[in-house]
């Protein structure tokens, strides 16, 4: 069954077309990822689905409710965590949760079951002002506030931005538990290894959805030959590899650089020989399998 449906949604700000006839469906209980560059339209889509702004054209439905005409009922069954920290900084952790509980006609005690995992981590700081929490704790508090009324659908706009790697893993464990409980979760992220944990991912570019697919299929359909190269000097290596015949594009990737080639590429041995000739040491060039992040790079650089 479909939980979220968007049909030909468009939104323009002045001369900027933020969304161009965007359509997608998210099934009930799905963990659905949105990826794309800054300004691609992810936040605009979240705001329309959460009934916070009106689309110029197109229709949406969330659990059968229209964000335009049924916004009151829709807000009772959705949770929304905006990209920017939007809780009350001068209220304590507990006061923020109680405030949101009251707004949604419930109590901390009644909503506690769903948020118990996260609330336990916050409890030692429950009397601390929200503004004085670390980045990871702020995001956990915001998630608690978005979940306090046990929504059927959860919208999370870059919830792990500014969050350290350990807290990010904890945050995603919580999301998986929520999905297992049957909640529909739509989440955007700039971290491709997080996107890889979603059931399906939509890639948005300049206001249009280029595809929505499972991470497995995205990686399978990469369709290019990908190599990794490393040497004793990594900074200048980028431009030197880029200038070699047959390299379509090359980008840094942790402890190596990745590159994609066309038919005129003369092979890894020829490249290694060329690099040794211009003074590089410890050169390794090898064919590798793409990851989600390589697929993102391919679509963005195309």
């Amino acid at each position, binding site marked *: 069954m479909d939980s979220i449906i968007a049909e030909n949604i468009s939104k323009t700000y002045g001369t900027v077309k933020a969304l161009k006839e965007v359509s997608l469906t998210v099934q009930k209980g799905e963990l659905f990822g949105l*990826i*794309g*560059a*800054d300004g691609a339209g992810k936040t605009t889509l979240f705001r329309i689905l959460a009934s916070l702004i009106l689309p110029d054209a197109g229709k949406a439905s969330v659990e059968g409710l229209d964000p335009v005409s049924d916004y009151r009922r829709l807000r009772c069954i959705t949770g929304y965590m905006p990209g920017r920290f939007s809780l009350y900084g001068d209220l304590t952790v507990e006061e923020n949760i109680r405030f949101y509980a009251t707004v949604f006609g419930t109590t901390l005690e009644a909503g506690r079951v769903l948020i118990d995992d996260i609330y336990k981590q916050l409890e030692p700081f429950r009397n601390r002002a929200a503004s004085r929490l*670390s980045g990871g704790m702020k995001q956990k508090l915001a998630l608690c506030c978005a979940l306090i009324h046990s929504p059927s659908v959860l919208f999370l706009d870059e919830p792990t931005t*500014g969050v*350290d790697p350990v807290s990010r893993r904890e945050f995603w464990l919580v999301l998986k538990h929520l999905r297992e409980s049957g909640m529909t979760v739509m989440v955007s992220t*700039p971290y491709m290894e997080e996107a890889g944990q979603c059931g399906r991912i939509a890639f948005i570019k300049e206001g249009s959805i280029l595809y929505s697919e499972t991470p497995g299929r995205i990686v399978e359909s990469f369709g290019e030959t990908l190599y990794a190269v490393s040497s004793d000097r990594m900074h200048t290596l980028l431009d030197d590899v880029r200038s070699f015949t047959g390299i379509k594009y090359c980008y840094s990737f942790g402890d190596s650089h990745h590159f994609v080639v066309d038919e005129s590429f003369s092979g890894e041995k020829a490249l290694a020989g060329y690099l040794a000739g211009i003074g590089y040491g410890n050169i390794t060039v090898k064919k590798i399998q793409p990851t989600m992040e390589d697929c993102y790079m391919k679509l963005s650089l195309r």
Partner: protein
Amino acid sequence: MGENAIEVRNLTKRFGDFTAVDHISFTVGKGEIFGFLGANGAGKSTAMKILCGLSLPTEGEGTVAGYDILKETESIKKSIGYMSQRFSLYDDLTVAENIRLYAGIYGVSDKEISPRTDKVLANLDFTAEKNTMVGSLPLGWKQKLAFSVAVFHHPKIVFLDEPTGGVDPVTRRQFWEMIYKTADKGITVFVTTHYMDEAEYCDRVSIMVDGRIEALGSPSALKSGFGANNMDDVFQKLARKAERG
């Protein structure tokens, strides 16, 4: 003060009975890209404020760009550049106005500002946006511009506090290529990040846990020292021990 851009010994900062930074010591060489990692709340921002001359340590000593962190904070401020993910530029000023404002604050002469602005904008491929309000630029563009502004006055050291937070994979890489070029010119780069692939791009990194530096070295030395495949594994091994939020 010799060859090092930053030298600190036993740097400590207490707020009441809470020790945010707990006797940290390290040096950063000139032209080095130094990654300052740690979990949220580990004490990175507090330490960085002291290094930038914005806060005095409770204990410890050191120099930044050759100036004493206790007595010469004003000289430190003039010798460094700074950008953060949270605040960097004024949304309601144009691209060119932001540059002029910061250049003026750092004492770049009026005669210098105009040609340098044109050069910076050309390098960024931003010339067409010269008179655009910064508030209407996408985040990734803002961050690249903020970085160019932070190094506009040719500081000895540039401090970058989560410069790529929330920035997409393509723009993050463009940002790091700007960092490489800056470091290759001899400017020291001191950077925090939560992206562990970016930790690999640093010459050396330190990892803070609960106010202390628990590990310091080149990415390859840390990986072999911890028997880890990548920097994320190293980070997870260390930061899981953290006790405070």
